[in-house]
């Protein structure tokens, strides 16, 4: 078995046995139960209102609710990604957990790669399951399905993987607590920049649009999330399409293939930076 796979398997087992996973599972179950109740009630109310307008109310309701579920999925996925990686290097070294592993002939690069693969696998699986559950609940409750559901889910999964990579890089330089705070601040900053971009688009303010664009390059998880949101109603047209774009979770930016290419390059750059920094770090 290759060294990175051994470490990844260890990281997976560690993730499953840590209490944070129980907290995340509990929160997830609570959220999905409330979400199912919310969907059932909301679609029932929408049906009761009747269909007297030119707006497809099922599309509007479904996309808004699923957009909310995607935000929650992104947030919980980010929590999981950060908690699985925030102390991977400096935190573990300070606690004396890392040195016995690094002394083995496994190599620091493999160790880092394995930690990332383990955390990314857990987060990706979690996000995929939670997003799929939300899509199913929305579809069964309201008979509405997203236009490009698979693409939206992949965007969300990759967004959380990017957050895991950023957190792993931060763990080389910062102690566990400092890294956790820093990554959550970056997470918040990325989302805030996205909202500013939406406001900039609505009001045609170039500066806000520029801020959003730069932040999307620096923190591509936000752009991936926006691309996922856009996929929900990508093929919706007419007045409904316009209204959906104005909603709090529907006013998202479409991503071109450039975003996916940049995400791959970004992950490679973060990985190279982490490898170089870890190789030079005294433990």
């Amino acid at each position, binding site marked *: 078995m290759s060294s990175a796979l*051994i470490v990844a398997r260890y990281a997976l087992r560690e993730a499953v046995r840590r209490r944070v996973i129980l907290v995340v599972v509990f929160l997830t179950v609570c959220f999905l139960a409330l979400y199912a109740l919310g969907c059932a009630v909301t679609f029932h109310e929408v049906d009761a209102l009747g269909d007297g307008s030119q707006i497809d109310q099922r599309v509007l309701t479904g996309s808004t609710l699923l957009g909310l579920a995607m935000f929650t999925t992104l947030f919980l996925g980010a929590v999981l990604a950060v908690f699985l990686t925030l102390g991977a290097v400096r935190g573990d070294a300070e606690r*004396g957990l890392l040195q016995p592993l690094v002394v*083995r002939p496994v190599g620091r690069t493999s160790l880092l790669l394995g930690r990332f693969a383990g955390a990314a696998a857990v987060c990706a699986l979690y996000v995929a399951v939670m997003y799929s559950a939300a899509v199913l609940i929305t579809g069964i409750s309201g008979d509405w399905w997203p236009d490009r559901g698979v693409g939206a889910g992949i965007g969300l999964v990759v967004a959380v993987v990017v957050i895991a990579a950023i957190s792993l890089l931060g763990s080389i330089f910062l102690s566990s607590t400092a890294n956790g705070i820093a990554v959550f601040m970056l997470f918040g900053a990325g989302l805030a920049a996205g909202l500013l971009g939406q406001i900039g688009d609505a009001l045609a303010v170039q500066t806000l649009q520029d801020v959003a664009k730069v932040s999307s390059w620096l923190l591509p998880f936000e752009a991936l999330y926006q691309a996922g949101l856009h996929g929900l109603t990508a093929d919706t047209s007419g007045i409904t399409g316009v209204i959906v774009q104005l909603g709090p979770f529907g006013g998202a930016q479409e991503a071109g293939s450039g975003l996916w290419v940049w995400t791959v390059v970004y992950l490679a750059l973060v990985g190279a930076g982490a490898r170089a920094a870890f190789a030079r770090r005294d433990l």
Partner: protein
Amino acid sequence: MPAALRCDSLAKRYGATVALGGVDLEVAPGELLGLLGPNGAGKSTLTKIACGLVRATDGRAEVEGAPAGSAEARAAIGYLAELFRFPDWLTADELLALHQDLSGSEGGPNERSELLELVGLADARDTKVAAMSKGMQQRLGIAQALVGSPRLLMLDEPTSALDPVGRRVVRDLLRELRERGIAVVLSSHLLSEVELVCDRVAILLGGRIVAQGTPDELAQPRGVEVETGEGVRSFPEATRDQVPAIVAELVQSGERVYGVRILGSTLEDAYLEAVGAA
């Protein structure tokens, strides 16, 4: 056969702080070296450089002929840190299995059982680390360091949390390892432990070796005391070889001799003298 550990002018600086200031040291295969020195003397830094955890600023360190930190060197080394922790969700057996995987050991369950037996943890095979006392964890740490049959064992304060019985177990283990040809570098503050088991001792102070030799070599003669009928007579410059002549002279001059005591310093005396705290 290359030295188990060889350091040439090994230096490490952290900014303006000199942790190691040019250390020359050689540990032969199967040799048990005690590394002594006060806190901050550079013992842990030296150990960590040998293990590839810290990069030297200058000089060179080799393990079994391979540069310290290389995959070959790390494959030949076993290490127990002074401040270590193991994942508390693993059992003793799972921890050793993990280190077997990481070190490429093909020893399987037999190696794990043998190692747990060796450190007196045969009954704790399925005990989680979280349920172990500090002493048990330290013994598990020694077993972990021995996974993959290393040629050089670097132990940083391996008996600090052990009770007298546990220390005895570790002492016996170290002697057994020596018989198997495994070199051991034992960093410790427990001078009596070092004196009991080590072939050679190196004393570090301020990042430099200020004394080294066998415990007997480091222990200096301190004269001879002769108990006579008129009280104890001291001969501070005398050596063991001069005792018969001293006794003969005293008897010849009419004194009654009841006993002779040859005085020598202990390793502790030698240590305190070397670090300037006597």
